[in-house]
């Protein structure tokens, strides 16, 4: 095709900066949404432990909504829908303060929280009842048995899937481009439309995504090996 692959065009001057900014926003979005997801995931787990039916239903509904509605649609509901329900001053504040970043964080974080809550729950469920009984037999109460015996083991089991959730969250930040958050995919398209170097622009973005994803995957594999416990 006579096409010459040349990265200089997209990696020089301002375009290089655009990639850097995009990467920074992607990482910031990942971290912010991750914190929200963990907090909310733990809160959901705690709510679910309260033996009161409506609370269980609420968490179940929360989880099912976030698992069965496309993430992009959830982002649209937050970005286009929710502000329209707020009073005018709140809306103006959002518009003036990078509302798209904030709302994307909320949408991504709350959706990931549903998966986090499920991972923590299956971690807890996978601890045999006998472990709890053994702790109770020594004289620990519900909280002691939970805190010193069940949770420490459950967390070890939940960490590898949670790292996988982190990978998915990182990849999903790319959807925020659809509401104009200037993250990596969004900047890549900008570089592409300014330079017309489509192949190079997307090659750079792909390399960045892969490098970070492989890093996260390696962490997951390492954690899986390190945290594995032999039954006793």
């Amino acid at each position, binding site marked *: 095709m006579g096409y010459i692959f040349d990265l200089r065009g997209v990696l020089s001057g301002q375009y290089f900066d655009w990639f850097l900014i995009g990467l920074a926003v992607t990482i910031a979005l990942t971290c912010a949404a991750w914190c929200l997801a963990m907090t909310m995931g733990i809160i959901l787990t705690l709510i679910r432990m309260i033996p009161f039916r409506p609370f269980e239903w609420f968490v179940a509904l929360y989880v099912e909504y976030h698992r069965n509605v496309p993430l992009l649609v959830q982002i649209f509901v937050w970005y286009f829908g929710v502000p329209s329900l707020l009073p005018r001053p709140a809306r103006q504040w959002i518009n003036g303060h990078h509302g798209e970043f904030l709302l994307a964080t909320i949408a991504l974080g709350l959706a990931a929280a549903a998966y986090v809550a499920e991972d923590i729950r299956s971690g807890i469920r996978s601890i045999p009842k*006998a*472990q709890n*009984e*053994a*702790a*109770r*037999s*020594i*004289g*620990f*109460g519900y909280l*002691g048995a939970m805190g*010193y*015996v069940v949770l*420490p*083991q459950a967390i*070890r089991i939940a960490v590898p899937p949670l790292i996988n959730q982190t990978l998915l969250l990182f990849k999903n930040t790319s959807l925020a481009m659809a509401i104009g958050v200037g993250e990596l995919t969004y900047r890549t398209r900008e570089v592409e439309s300014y330079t017309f170097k489509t192949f190079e622009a997307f090659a750079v973005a792909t390399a960045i995504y892969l490098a970070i994803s492989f890093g996260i995957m390696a962490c997951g594999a390492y954690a899986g090996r390190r945290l594995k*416990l*032999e*039954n*006793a």
Partner: protein
Amino acid sequence: MIQFESVDKWYGAMQALAGVSGEVRRGEVKVLVGPSGCGKSTLIRTVTRLEAIQGGRVLVDGVDVGARGVNINRLRQRVGFVFQAYNLFPHLSAIGNITLGLTKLRKMGKAEARERALAELARVGLAAKAEEMPGKLSGGQRQRVAIARSLAMDPEVMLFDEPTSALDPEMVGEVLAAIKQLATNGMTMICVTHEMGFAREVADEVWFMERGAVVERGRPADLINSSAHPRLQRFLRTLA
């Protein structure tokens, strides 16, 4: 020390214990035998309320275990329980399994707890394995750590639920030796086991259970060899 007063236990429509009565005095060793599913585990689990009961009473030191307001966690510290499947905490080392209760419940200092735990491990012959993770120990070693874990809480009574039946034959001896030593030192115990040699040596009394009830009881020598208890004899033959 422990009294069962016509204890009834139901799992749904299935009656697991039917009016069990009996007493274990301080310093006594009782051995529970009986066919699978007759309710042996259920009976000793009622002592520390691992199973709630629907009728009758279980008393420990005169206190009704099932009564409202009983501090069950305190009571469980006084009654050690050893499980068939060891149930060591796999995320803690052998010594960590033992110090957990000491530091968190007894509020001992770290150094003191370690010292105490090491003493208990030495008592069951495992001082050298203190830092090992449970997954790296043999079945017999795990069960001995589990016994040490219970003993560290200074229990007044020990309950054993088939402590050797998950073990390879060559490891049964080491665990039984540890339990025998306890008995010699005057520990009150109820032990579910099918090791009749062990029963003959240490038990003050053997209780034979069938379908949720204690149907025969007596000194091991009397029970095991007498022909007056045909059902027990038949059961013992199935063991051999």
